[in-house]
């Protein structure tokens, strides 16, 4: 293996960071560039609910100290937007018009929060929970005892919900077909799960039962900041409205690359795309499952980390298939606690 190769990794989430770590271990002399749109180095996104427990210093969330990247000779390029990948020239075009050549490329750009198209016009009235900055913004907007309305209620949003219940806030879940994403539960399980959420103190409204979400409006001065208006005329007021409908892979910059894309980057079980020098890992990729005979996503921190590690090993000579690293089932423990692997982080 040529030790002076230039490995470029797009994305500094769990998969990208793990891949960089493994690559450095296996190829001490190679050049590794880690590109991220974020202003911060890799931090623990699964830990963001701690913001509501009073942890407000971004350094508390860093997984590795800032010196780690220098020590490991990993070129961390923050605030860097990738706009295109030219696979034939093995070149990445960056937003500031720089061309960055690579020998191998790992796409680990993850996913961004999905906002259903019918709600897109209300985007300015909605908050996100994808980054430290997002979490701090919600904290600032949410007064003590204030109300958060969660639309959809994927496992990321529900993680925040249970934190906010603990911190004395009011949480209203406007449930729909995306509730408990990415888990796929039966109608019976769903009813049980919703009952457990209710017992946890989360108020639950069924979006369809209310005639669907008609609009989201800014409240008048002196009243709750946001109003979610339903088709039957009822309203739900809240200080913050959080759409929580799962993730969509961040693949826009790959559209000109010629790599196969359906919703995510389509990869073989060894995480290879249709271009030998490009692999993908994490929430951005759909992996071929020979058993299920379809491409599918694998979520959860352990799976994503395993993909990052595997991709790095396959970039450096191995040729192994991905094996899921965690159970994907959602279940209720002791009748009172929801157990989701999506909430596990260690």
């Amino acid at each position, binding site marked *: 293996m040529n030790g002076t190769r230039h490995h470029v990794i797009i994305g500094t989430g769990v998969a990208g960071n793990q891949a960089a770590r493994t690559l450095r271990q296996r190829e001490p002399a190679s050049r590794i560039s880690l590109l991220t749109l974020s202003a911060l180095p890799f931090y623990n996104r699964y830990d963001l609910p701690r913001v509501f427990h009073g942890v407000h210093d971004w350094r508390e969330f860093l997984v590795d100290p800032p010196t780690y990247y220098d020590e490991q000779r990993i070129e961390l390029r923050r605030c860097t937007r990738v*706009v*295109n990948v030219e696979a034939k020239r093995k070149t990445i*075009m960056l*937003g500031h*018009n720089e061309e960055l050549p690579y020998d191998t490329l790992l796409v680990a750009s993850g996913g961004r929060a999905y906002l*259903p*198209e*019918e709600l*897109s016009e209300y985007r300015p009235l909605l908050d996100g929970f994808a980054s430290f900055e997002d979490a701090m913004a919600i904290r600032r907007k949410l007064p003590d005892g204030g109300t958060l309305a969660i639309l959809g209620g994927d496992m990321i949003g529900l993680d925040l919900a249970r934190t906010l219940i603990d911190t004395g806030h009011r949480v209203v879940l406007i449930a729909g077909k995306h509730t408990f994403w990415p888990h796929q539960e039966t109608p019976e399980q769903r009813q049980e799960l919703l009952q457990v959420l209710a017992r946890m103190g989360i108020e639950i409204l069924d979006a369809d039962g209310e005639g669907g979400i*008609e609009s989201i409006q800014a409240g008048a001065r002196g009243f709750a900041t946001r109003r979610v208006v339903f088709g039957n005329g009822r309203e739900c007021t809240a200080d913050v409205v959080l759409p929580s409908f799962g993730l969509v892979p961040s693949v826009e910059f790959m*559209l*000109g690359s*010629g790599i*196969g*894309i*359906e*919703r995510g980057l*389509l990869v073989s079980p060894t995480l290879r795309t*249709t271009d030998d020098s490009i692999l993908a890992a994490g929430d951005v990729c759909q992996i*071929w499952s020979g058993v299920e*005979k*379809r*491409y599918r996503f694998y979520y959860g921190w352990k799976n994503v980390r395993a993909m990052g590690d595997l991709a790095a090993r396959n970039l450096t000579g191995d040729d192994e298939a991905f094996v899921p690293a965690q159970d994907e089932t959602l279940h209720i423990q002791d009748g009172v606690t929801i157990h989701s692997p999506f909430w596990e982080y260690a």
Partner: protein
Amino acid sequence: MSAVVEPQDRETRPGPRMMHSEDPRDVGWVVQNIPCQAACPAGTNVPAYIRAIAEGRHGEAYEINRGANVLPGVLGRICSRPCESVCRHGWPGNGEPVGICNLKRSAADQKSTGHRITERLYAPTGKRIAIVGAGPAGVAAAHDLSVLGHDVTLFEREQHFGGMLRYGIPEFRLPRDVVDFELHNALRLGVELLRGQGVGNGPDEVRVVDLLAAHDAVLLAAGCMAPLPLPLKLRGERLAAADECPDVEHGLPFLMSLHRGERKSVRRRVAVVGAGFTALDCARVATRLGAQEVTIHIRTAEEYIPVTKEEIFEAKREGVRIKGLRTPVGIVVDGDGRLCGVEFVQNRLGAWREDGRRQAIAIEGSEFLEPCDTLLIAIGQKTVNDFLDIKVELDQWHNVRTGEDGMTSARGLFACGDFVTGPTTVVEAIGRGRQAAQKLDAWLMGKPRRKRVVQIVPIDEPLRERAFDFIARQHMHTAPLHDRLGKGQPEVELGMDDKQTLQEARRCYLCNLHYQIDVDRCIYCRACIEVAPRNCIKLVQGVEVLADGSYGSLREAREWNQVGAIWIDNNECIRCGACFRACPVKCISISRDEFVELDTA
């Protein structure tokens, strides 16, 4: 810039500040450097009309459009936008493409009422031409041929003109008053209109041989209206074959009967198979007919289907779902013969096809069932030519074959549009209709009467400001969801207002502006290079000259002693004018280089 020709048109008469050129270097420059115009099948001069909009001359912008694509108000709503896919503003690092199509609509919507139409009419020739089919290709050809002085009769089988525009595209995308206005504009130059008049072998139909006998030429523009069959296995004992199921229908006939005024209905869960505009239209119509769940099933993936992102977005906004990597292989019916599901096979993506789309490869043993109550099949169309009572040569797809001159193997019988090419887009059909008109005219008159040249006009100063490059793409307002799904199919896209239109027009780089450095006057101070926002001004050893005489790629110099010239790479240039303003010796010139059509005589 040699070979100056003498034009017949006052508006384009050359003078000290204007010249015309057929030099391959000038022709090549325009083709290479104005990608939007090169991509437009109708050859629309996009930078010219956007500049007119930016200057508030909407009527002129509309006329520039009409001179090329005949139906700007229609295309401003439903064009497939090949221009925007290649727009320089959308190249990596430059942001999003200019909203060219939306601007076309703005020109049509915001022109003053009763603005002056410009038609350069030729003297009557006394030649009689019959055109079969009043769709986009037939209408475009009829317009051009009547302008050229011929007596045109247009035969249309349906009760109204417009073909696909009226019967294929739903009203919420293309209001019928817009279609009526634009068709009237195009056909009012003395075209004789025969509606409800079929051409073929039927009892009330006119035979093609009779048309040929009564006219100097006949142009077939009958479109591509027959749905492609989809072989489906049948599971269920009630029916003999899948196509007997009352809940399975082809998309285009479904839309056409709806638009003829027939009552159509769908059941609760609708599956649409297909990946084009017709499939999307079927899905969106189904939501308006009351379907609760509408899903489009495609063979590849959403990224590769040949419809605009805006259409996909609006369909999803209305609740339509899109599922990829699947091919339908069968249907399942219940004991009453009603549809209860479609069987698919899982696909994987294959290689790129020659047409730029992706292959889908079925995976053996991966069949699965999707429950649904109505299936609409919109996988494409084919031509029907069994109405021809004259023997003509066909190609491998059983489309009528035409020669370089646009004529079929039967003398005097021409063909154009989708009837020749198979299914394309409205703008392609219009472009081909216009080309056919030129060829037919040349055959009738014994020589081409129009030719394309490059018109070069010096410009005194840059027409753009650097600040324009940072204006975000303006997005068109659309109707609220609760208004869309009610009665009357109101138009979904509402157009851009004045302010949006101006902002969007300013975003255009005006790629028809040609920046050049006079190397004899250049002092190589590098001031232009210092202010250039991109790597657009280069020190070069030389410039490749291609086989057709046009310029090719630049050979950049790496050392000073290799420098042969300083050259503006117009491919990289975003026409910001910074170099022009910075040059201390004023050796940078700007000209507006664009195609115009002139008389050959």
